[in-house]
């Protein structure tokens, strides 16, 4: 499995990488939506899940989500939108626009892994 974390916080990406390492999945990272799309292009769309931060400079999470859903090659990659509390409208908007799941900061490693399992339809 290959998971792309798109987040402008290096600390959050580092935290996510540690959880991904425990799962034994491959970790890709980008600091904003533009970089995220570049990585997808470079990897020829071969990513199983995108953990996408809502708020980022350059291209934010919602813009990248829209770009993904408008692209035939990327539209089926599941997206988990990462937001902060008190952004319920944003969560609903992301789901309406095609995000499969959402994760609210701050999150624990178990919380994150639970969401990854849900997003990838992994069961025991």
């Amino acid at each position, binding site marked *: 499995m290959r998971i792309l974390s798109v987040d402008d916080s290096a600390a959050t990406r580092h935290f996510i990488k540690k959880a991904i390492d425990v799962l034994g999945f491959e970790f890709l990272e980008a600091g904003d939506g533009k970089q995220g799309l570049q990585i997808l292009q470079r990897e020829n769309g071969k990513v199983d899940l995108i953990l996408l931060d809502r708020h980022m400079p350059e291209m934010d999470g919602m813009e990248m989500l829209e770009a993904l859903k408008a692209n035939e090659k990327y539209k089926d990659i599941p997206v988990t939108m990462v937001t902060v509390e008190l952004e319920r409208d944003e969560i609903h908007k992301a789901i309406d626009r095609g995000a499969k799941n959402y994760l609210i900061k701050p999150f624990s490693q178990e919380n994150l892994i639970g969401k990854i399992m849900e997003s990838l339809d992994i069961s*025991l």
Partner: protein
Amino acid sequence: MITIDEFRLIRDYVEKHCGIHLSDDKTYLVETRLTTMMFEQGCNTFGDLYNRAVLDKTHTLRDKIIEAITTNETFWFRDIHPFSILTELVLKQYADEIAAGKRNKIRFWCCACSTGQEPYSIAMTFLEFIRHYPRLKPENIEILATDISSTVLFLGKLGRYDNLAITRGLGEEYRDRYFVQNNKIWTISDEVKKMVRFQKLNLQESFNHLGKQDIIFCRNILIYFSLEFKQDILKRIAALLRPGGYLFLGASESIIMYTQEYEMQRHAMGLYYQVK
């Protein structure tokens, strides 16, 4: 901020569905663990979250609430004494019975296994034991590891631990013997992994289908249960144990005031219980 009425609603709901009793000092725990979920679900209050869970016929939200509330603090060889008792007493007894042809298997059940540290510690204890008792084979033991949380079971089944998790209670000798290191991740060896079977189980539901067990680890979990549920579960565990079977609890737990079905025993610095 959770209100006292909301806390009571959720407390009773959690107790009804998984038996875990939350005392009033757990208000903060409920609030911190369910706040994210409340927002995720688009709820304005904890009361709304409760109502949504009650109305959810798929029980998905109920399971999420239970998963968020249950704690998953776990260590390798936690409290050490149960593992010394296994080596010095219990495994020796069963090994003699196997050698005498009185039995073929030793059946363990870890009833709240979290991310696998406890069942894997039992498996390593057994492997160490048979180094000095070569007539026994890994096939002579069955370790069933259950938990209510799918996430922790998934992690346990993977058997991969980071640098922090690997250090909590595990000595270097065992680490180097039973784990394979790859960068910052330590993976439990196949030899140990294949001895443990993980399965989802809510202790509130019947567990008769698991079949008779010789040794049950029910450690650091009874503390979360109400008096009635403690009594109920201890009764059902007693019925599942073979005559003379062993029950191990957490270091700070005692059951003598809840049940008459076990005999408390002492070995060196540790305690264990045997079904009468």
